[in-house]
Each structure stands twice: as C-alpha cells, then as structure tokens.
C-alpha cells in the first residue's frame, strides 16, 4: 500500500516538473527564435494606431516603435504611407510614402542562470529599441474634404522598413565521409543549407554540393540597391578549391532568385586521397523589406 502511494507521489512530481520545464523551455524558445527587425505603432493620444477612429479634421501623428533582435546594428529606411488619395490630406500615398533613415543598435544577449531544482541557463535578448515619428517636419497630419458619410471610411496605414543585410554562412566539408555539413550562420532573413555528395575518382574525389536558401519570415528580399525583388547576391567559396556552380543547368552568375525553390549545384575536384576538411563560405548580400498594414477608420460626420 505504501509503495503504491509513493509511486503516485513520484508520478505527480514528475508531471509537475515536466509542465514547469516545458513552460520554461517554451519561454526561452520564444526569446531565442526572434530575429531581425520588428515594429508596431506607438500607442499614444494623438497618434494613429491599428483600429483607431479619427475624425476628419483631427490632427494626428504616427509613431513607429522599432525593435532589433539581431546582434548587429542595423541602419536603413522606414517609410509610411496611407491608401487615401493625397487630395484628401493624410500621409503621402506615393510608392513608399514618406521615408526617414534610421540606425538602431544591436540586441543585447545576456545569459541567465537559474538555480535550484530547475537550474538551467538561458539567453535573454534585449532588443535594440528606436521610436521614429512622422511627420519628421514637426507638422501634423489631418484628413479633409472627404464626402461626409455616417459610417467611417476604412483606410490603411502601411509601414515599410528597409535595410541591407550582409551575412556569411560557413561549414566544413569533410572529404571523404558521408556526414552532412552543418552551416553556421547568424540569424538572418535568408538561411543557407547545404547537402554534400562525395564521389571517389582516380587520385581523388569529386565533391558535389547542393546549396539552398530558405526565407525565414514574410519579408521581401531585394538586391542591395532594392531594384530587383526576390534577388540576392551570393558568393560561394570552397577554400582553397576552385568551384564551379550552376542553377537549373545554367552557369551561376552570382545572384539567386529566392522566389523559386532553385538550388545552386556546385562541384569541386580534389586531386588527392587524403582525408581533409575544406571550409565552405557562402556570402549573401541583399536588401530586406518588411511591410505591415494597420487598418484605421476616418469618421467624416459628427453624430
């Protein structure tokens, strides 16, 4: 009887511990997983936020609260536009609207150690924070001249953040061996993956690499000058070997279209039979554009 009750106590403690550790892990994971830039609108009186109701003629501002979860400083442009024709006031509806440049500090990572029965160590991220206000001129926005209706007009505010990313991903390609290389890379919008195949040949090996890019978030990828969408510059080196690459059977030109699930196939020849490791370095340079829309309402009739 006593054995039975002890058994239930132990099982109960295990269940509680499992829940606690699971909650702890999920908490750590959410912090660890976040990377790149994120933003939302500043919520203050006189500022438009998602779901705001403003009256025609009211003056307002827009504030963007920007957070950087990357471990490097970011600089770029933040742009704001609405979808109301400019003749009715408000914010410019041009291609990107009104833009301001920004520089936001890197995120700080601190190791947190927990002691006691749940002792563990985790990394806490304190993102770099910046608030950008529109209009920058010190003036304020307002809507005017819209036809008066009982129900408010539904409008949208589009916030676009653009920045450039230069990142390296690296792995060691061991020859010979069937173990797959693991890419080491800082968190970034484009993550690099590689699969190797080693083919023995006379006096050496033929190394085939399949390099893929995976977009990590719903962000737009552009060339660094933001002129072409879904294109990144990409440089592949297998030091000190000479490497030849192709995409869909065509010679690789140093750019990659990330909208397609294409793979860059590279080959290098090793003219000796010694076991050795070769560093693979994939360098990427691209522009990131993140856009969010925030719906709000414009009341034109006082009730």
């Amino acid at each position: 009887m006593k054995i039975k009750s002890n058994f239930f106590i132990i099982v109960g403690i295990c269940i509680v511990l499992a829940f606690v550790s699971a909650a702890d892990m999920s908490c750590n994971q959410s912090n660890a997983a976040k990377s790149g830039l994120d933003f939302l609108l500043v919520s203050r009186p006189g500022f438009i936020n998602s779901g705001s109701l403003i009256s025609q003629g009211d003056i307002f501002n827009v504030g963007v609260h920007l957070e950087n979860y990357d471990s490097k400083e970011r600089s770029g442009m933040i742009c704001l536009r609405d979808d109301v024709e400019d003749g009715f006031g408000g914010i410019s509806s041009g291609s990107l609207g009104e833009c301001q440049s920004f520089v936001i500090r890197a995120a700080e990572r601190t190791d947190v150690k927990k002691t006691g029965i749940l002792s563990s160590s985790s990394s806490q991220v304190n993102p770099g924070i910046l608030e950008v206000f529109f209009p920058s001129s010190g003036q304020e926005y307002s809507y005017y001249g819209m036809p008066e209706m009982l129900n408010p007009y539904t409008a949208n505010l589009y916030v676009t953040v653009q920045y450039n990313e230069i990142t390296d991903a690296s792995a060691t390609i061991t020859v010979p061996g069937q173990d797959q290389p693991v890419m080491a890379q800082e968190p970034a919008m484009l993550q690099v993956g590689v699969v190797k195949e080693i083919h023995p040949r006379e006096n050496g090996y033929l190394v085939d690499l399949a390099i893929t890019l995976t977009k990590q978030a719903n962000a737009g990828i552009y060339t660094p000058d933001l002129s072409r969408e879904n294109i990144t510059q990409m440089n592949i080196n297998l030091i000190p070997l000479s490497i030849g690459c192709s995409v869909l059977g065509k010679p690789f030109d140093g750019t990659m279209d990330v909208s397609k699930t294409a793979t860059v196939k590279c080959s290098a020849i090793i003219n000796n039979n010694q076991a050795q490791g070769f560093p693979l370095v994939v360098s990427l340079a691209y522009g990131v554009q993140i856009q969010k829309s925030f719906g709000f309402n414009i009341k034109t009739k006082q009730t």
Partner: protein
Amino acid sequence: MAGLTELVFTSGTLNPSQYYWGINPIVWLIILLGVCGIIGAMLGKDFKREPGEKQLTIGQSLKSAAATGVMGAVIGLIIAILLSIFPIVRFGFPALYGSLMFFIIFTIVGFAGFFVVGFLYFIVPIPEQLKMTIVWGIAGMALGVLLWVIFIAQTGPVGSYMSFAYAPVREKINSFFDSLSKFEACFYASPKCPFFIQWDEPTRENPLELFNADLQFSETQVVSNNINVLASLTVKNPELAQIELIPTCYLGSSPHVKDEQIDIKNLGKYSIGNKFVFPLTADELHTSFRCSRELSDFTKNVYIGYVIVELKRPVILKASWPIYIGTEPNMGRTKTIMSFNAPYSVALTADSDMPFEEGKTYDFAVVIKRIDENTNMTFLKELRIEFPDSILAECENFEVDGQDLVLSNIDMSVLKNITQYTANDERYSIACSMQIKDAPQRAVLTPIKIDASYDVVTQYETPILKAHG
C-alpha cells in the same frame, strides 16, 4: 333597411389600371367559368349515384330540390359571412351595411342555384355519370363567378364593393406576382435579376431617412354627408435648418385614382398659410390638418371611397462613391454609399474593375432611381458631383463648376428627355466618363462626393365609408 342596397361609388367605370395583366374583366369571367367548369366536370365524372336509386316524380323532385335549395342557401350565407369578415375587420361597423347585402344576395343565389340544379338532377332522365358531371361543372362555374366577383369585377354594386373591400388583398397578390416576374430577368442574365448585385442601387448606411414624416388618418367615416378626415402628421427633422411640407387632399375612387381635390382645413401647429414649416430638432414634432368636403346632394346610406393626401417636400441626399485609383491590387467594383434611405437614390456606377489606372479613361453612369413606390420626384433642384483633383470627368448635359459637375433646376419631363429613362423602374441614367490624371502605383481611396436636392410628393390614403344615418 329600405336603403340598404343603395350603394354610391365615386367611379363605376374601368380604367386601365383595373385590367388584370391587360385582360378585360369579362374575358376573365369567361376564362374562370371555363377553367372552373372543366375542373368541376372532371371531378364529377368520377361520382356515381347510389345504385338502386330510382327516377323521381315531379312532386318528389320539387321536394328534394327545395331541400337542396335550403342547403344552397346555408352555403351561400356561410360564403357571405366569410367574405364579410375582411371588410368588417378593416372598416369596422360601417362595413356591416355593405356586408348585409351579401348575406341576402348569396342566400338567395345559393337557394336558387341549388334548387334549379337539384331539380334538374332529380327530374331529367339522363345517364347518372353525365348528371354528376353537369352538376359538378356548374358548381365549378359558380366558384369561378365568386372568384371573379372578389378579384376581377370592378363594376356593379357587388363588384365595386368587393373591389373596394379587397383592394389590399388584390394589391398583395399583384405585388407577389410582380416580385415573381422580376425573377424572369434571371433567365436572360439581365441585371434586373434579384440574384445579381444591383450596381446602380447604392448601399444605404441608414435604412431610415433622417427626415421622417408619418401620416395617420382618423375620423374616416362620412358623418352627416360630410367628409372631415383628420390627418395626424408626425415629423422628425434632425438635420435640415427647416423643412417645408405642403399637403394636398383628394377624393379618389381607388388608392391610385384622384377624382377631385378637396379642402384642407384646420392646419395645426407649424403651419404658415397652406404649408407646414418644421424647424431643426431631434424631437418628434406633431401636428394635424383635416381633409374636408361636404356632400351637399348626397342622400345615400352607404358611401365608399378614398381620401388621398399628397405631401410635397424637399429631399437632400448625400452620397459617396468610394472608388480606388492606382494600378494594383485588383479591387473589383464598388457601390455608391448613400448616407440614408432617400425616396430616389442617386448612384454612380461603372462596369470596370478598380483601381482605375492613371492615364486611362473610364465610362460610368449617374443613375437616379425610385426607391419608394409611394413617392414621385417632381423637380430636380440640383445634382452636384465633386471630383478630386486627380480625376477629370464629364457627364452629358452637366455644367462644369470648377472640379464639380452640376445639373440644376430640371423639370421631370426635361429629365426624361435628357437621360436614358426607363419607365417600369423609374430610372434615369446619364452617361459620363472620367480620366485619371494621376494616381500612385498602389491603389488609393478616392471618394467622389454626390449631393442631390430634389422635391418629392409622397402619397398617403385612407378608405372612407359612410355610416348609416
């Protein structure tokens, strides 16, 4: 009771509106007699007399026919009572005088009909099968006459009274068939099909008009040969600085036939001369007036007709056509939004998807359409369409006023001539086009403002009866 069957009607002649689907009532009678007679005969051919029943003598036949006649009288009386229920509920005690006439007529006709048919049935030596066929055929024809009296006949004492008493029932039946006929358009994929979105009818933000007038009638009996109907007017005017209502009273033989204009008396609060002027207020305003006429040469016991009141008033309509200009994304079509329900809607509509692209020209139409069937537009004071700077627009017969297009001071007969007018749904369409001068890549909301001001006449009517006096 001597004058009980003396009925006086304001009109005994047929006008085209009394023709059902364009067919003369007499033709309807023939059709109903034929159809009901045939159906009755078809039913009758399956009935047989009891086997062994013998042929009766004349005396026995008369006796049996008399008993059948009594049964017919009872049936006639029951039908008369049933037919009288609706008028009595609708008009109250005065309708009893008209209904008493039914009791007598239907009782006599029921007795006579059953007696004659019964006698023929018992005396004539023709095959049983044929006899039953004839009897049921005649019964069917009698039903046809009854239906004709209720729904078709408009003349004669019974026809006119039934027409008067059952007018609402007939209107409901007609409107049911009218609504059915709208579905016919679906077979031709016509835009009038109710399943299709009516792009020329605006969305209404408020189902009620901000200005609201309601007229209730009382004292609708003719007393001492005088019509003196009290019309109680309730008005809500939460928006306009002031609003003028001009009432006019008529005497009519039906809700849609105005026979003569009659006097307006005792105009109550808010009246100035022959009109009412209501100030802006959030409260309900109440006043009244009387429609009056002395029937000097009138000695009849029962009088039936309609008092019709027309209220003339201005309507100020505000609407917006929320179009998008730009290049992407595709946003389909948008409907005009009317801030409240107006008797006549004004909408801008185009067959093209949005957004409208920079540099391109798009056709669209201004459509004025009747919404409230009891209201008629009498004068279009102004229709102003305000376009933003990014749009260059033109409409047939509109004047240009800066960025606005304006149509002003148009009589309805002129409006019919300068627009594409369709009478069956009282729709006026004006062809327009717009050029998008400049627009961004991404679509932007560019609402077009519509202000319309017009006069309407709204009709209210009440049946009137003379009490026995």
